C-alpha cells in the first residue's frame, strides 16, 4: 500500500523542473533543426542556402538527371545490399557456430570483433586501406564491398548472439529426436526463434553500410563513389543538390528506423496471435 506513496519519492526529483524541461526542448530543437533545414532547402527554387525563395523540385530533377550522382546512388545501394546479405548470413552462421565453440574461442572472437566497433573509424579505415595496398588489390567497388562486409559482421553478431544464448538447447535435440536432420533442425527450429535478432542485425548492417563515409572514402578507388563521398567532395561549393541527396538519405534511414522499431512488435503480435489460435 505504501508503494504508491513512495513511488514519487523514488524518482530523481519530485518538482516539475521547468529549467530541465526548457533545456530538453532546446536540445530537441538543436538536434532536429539542421535536419529540417536540409529537407526544407532541398525544395528551394534558388541556389541560396540562406533564403527560401519558393517551392520547387528542381534540385531533385537535377539530381536524377546527373549520371554521376545516379552512379553514386547505385553504388551505395549495391554495396549496402551485398554487404547486408553477406554479413547477415555469415554473421548468423558464425554466431551459431560460436555458441557451440569453446569459451576461449568465443571470447577471442568477441574481443576481435570489438576492434571495428570501438576503434575510431579512421583507424579501421586506414588499416583496411593498408591491407588492400599491401596485398596489391586495386581499390574500387570490390574493396568497398569487402570493407563493408568486414565492419558489418560484428554488428550482426552483436545482435544475433544474445538471441542464441537465450535459446533452449533441448529444442534442437528434440527436433532431431523427432526425425529432423541437423540442417532441418537449424532451419525449422533454431532460425525462426532467432529471427528477430537476425532481422535487426540485417537492418543495422544496412544502415551502417548505407551511411558509411570514412571507411568507404579510404578504401575506394577508380572514381567509385558512394553518396557520402559525393556529398563530401561536393560540399566545398554551395550546391543544393546535396540537400536533395541528403533528404533522400534521411528519408531512407528514417524509414529503416521505423521498420526496426515497428516490425519486431508486429512479428511478436502475430506470433502471440498464432499461439492463441493454436
Amino acid at each position: 500500500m505504501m508503494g504508491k506513496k513512495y513511488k514519487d519519492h523514488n524518482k530523481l526529483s519530485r518538482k516539475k523542473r521547468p529549467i530541465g524541461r526548457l533545456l530538453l526542448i532546446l536540445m530537441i530543437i538543436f538536434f532536429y533543426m539542421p535536419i529540417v533545414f536540409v529537407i526544407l532547402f532541398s525544395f528551394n527554387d534558388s541556389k541560396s542556402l540562406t533564403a527560401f525563395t519558393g517551392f520547387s523540385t528542381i534540385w531533385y530533377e537535377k539530381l536524377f538527371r546527373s549520371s554521376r550522382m545516379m552512379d553514386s546512388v547505385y553504388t551505395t545501394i549495391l554495396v549496402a545490399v551485398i554487404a547486408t546479405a553477406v554479413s547477415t548470413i555469415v554473421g548468423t552462421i558464425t554466431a551459431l557456430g560460436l555458441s557451440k565453440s569453446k569459451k576461449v574461442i568465443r571470447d577471442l572472437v568477441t574481443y576481435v570483433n570489438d576492434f571495428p566497433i570501438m576503434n575510431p573509424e579512421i583507424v579501421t579505415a586506414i588499416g583496411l586501406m593498408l591491407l588492400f595496398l599491401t596485398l596489391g588489390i586495386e581499390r574500387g567497388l570490390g574493396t568497398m564491398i569487402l570493407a563493408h562486409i568486414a565492419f558489418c559482421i560484428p554488428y550482426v553478431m552483436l545482435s544475433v548472439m544474445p538471441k542464441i544464448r537465450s535459446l533452449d538447447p533441448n529444442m534442437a535435440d528434440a527436433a532431431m529426436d523427432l526425425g529432423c536432420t541437423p540442417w532441418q533442425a537449424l532451419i525449422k527450429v533454431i532460425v525462426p526463434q532467432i529471427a528477430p535478432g537476425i532481422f535487426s542485425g540485417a537492418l543495422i548492417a544496412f544502415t551502417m553500410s548505407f551511411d558509411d563515409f570514412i571507411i568507404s572514402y579510404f578504401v575506394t578507388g577508380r572514381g567509385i563513389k558512394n553518396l557520402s563521398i559525393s556529398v563530401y567532395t561536393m560540399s566545398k561549393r554551395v550546391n543544393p543538390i546535396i540537400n536533395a541527396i541528403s533528404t533522400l538519405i534521411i528519408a531512407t534511414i528514417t524509414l529503416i528506423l521505423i521498420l526496426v522499431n515497428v516490425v519486431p512488435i508486429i512479428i511478436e503480435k502475430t506470433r502471440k496471435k498464432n499461439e492463441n489460435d493454436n
Partner: protein
Amino acid sequence: MKKINQLATPYIIWAGIMILLPMLLILFYAITDSGNGIVSFRLTLKPFGKFFTDPDFLLILWRSLGIALKTTIICIIIGYPVAYYIAGSDDRVQNLLILIITIPTWINMLVRTYAWIGLLSDGGLFSTILGFAGLKDVKLLYTEGAVILGMVYNFIPFMILQINASLSKMDHSLIQAAADLGANRTQCFLKVTLPLSLPGVVNGIALVFLPAVSSFFIPKMLGGGQYYLIGNVIENQFITVGEWNFGSAISIIMAVIMMAFMYVVRAIERRNSTVEEDDRRRRGAAL
C-alpha cells in the same frame, strides 16, 4: 550437431585477415621505412621523430586535444542536466525521449554536419538572428566555434544516452535513504546521485572525446581548412601525399594518446567507485 562449432572457422580466418592484420599493418608501417613496400624494409622511428620535431604538427596535435577537450566539457555540462531530466520522467516518456535523441545519431553524420554550413553561413539563420540582436557581421562559419559546435552536435547524444543509462539503472531508494537521514537536495545530488552516475559520464567521455580527437570531416566542413586537426593530417598523408609510413605513425601517436587519456579518466573513476564499494561492503557487513 557436434560439427556445428566448425561453422565459426571461416569467420575466424576472415577476422584474422580483415580485422587483426590491418591493425598489425598500421603498426608495421609506423615503424618501418620501406618506401611503401613490404618485401624490403628497415626498422626506423624516423616518422615519429619527424612528427615530434615539427612545431606545426605539434601545434595541430595540441589544437586537436584542446578542441576535443572543450567539446567533451560542453557535452557534460549540457548533457548531464538533460540526461537527469529524462531519467526523472515516467518510463513511457523516458523511452520516447530516448528514441527522439537516438534517431538523429542514425542519420549520416556527414549530412548533418553539412546542414550546419547553411545555418551558420553569412545571411543564414544564425547570423540573421545575431543581426537583429545588434551583432552584425559576426563571422560564424569557418571558426573554431563552428568546429566545436559541429562536434557537440554530433557527439552529445552519446553523452546523454550514457549518463541517462547509469542514472536510470541506479537504486533510487539510496536517495530516499539519504533524504531520510537528513541530507538536503544538494547533498543528495552531490553525495549520492553524482558518484553513482560517474560510470555513465566516463563512458560518455569515451564516446565524445575519442571521435572528437580523430574527426576529420567536421573540421574540414565547418572549419574551412583553417582548423586543421590531427585527423586531417592523417587523411592528408593517406589520400593526398601518399606517405603511409608517416600517416601510420601519426595514427599510432593518436591511438596512444587516446588510450592514455581513457586510462587517466578510468583511474579517476575507479578511485571514486572504490569508496563507494567500501561503503557497500560496510553496509553489507552491518546487515
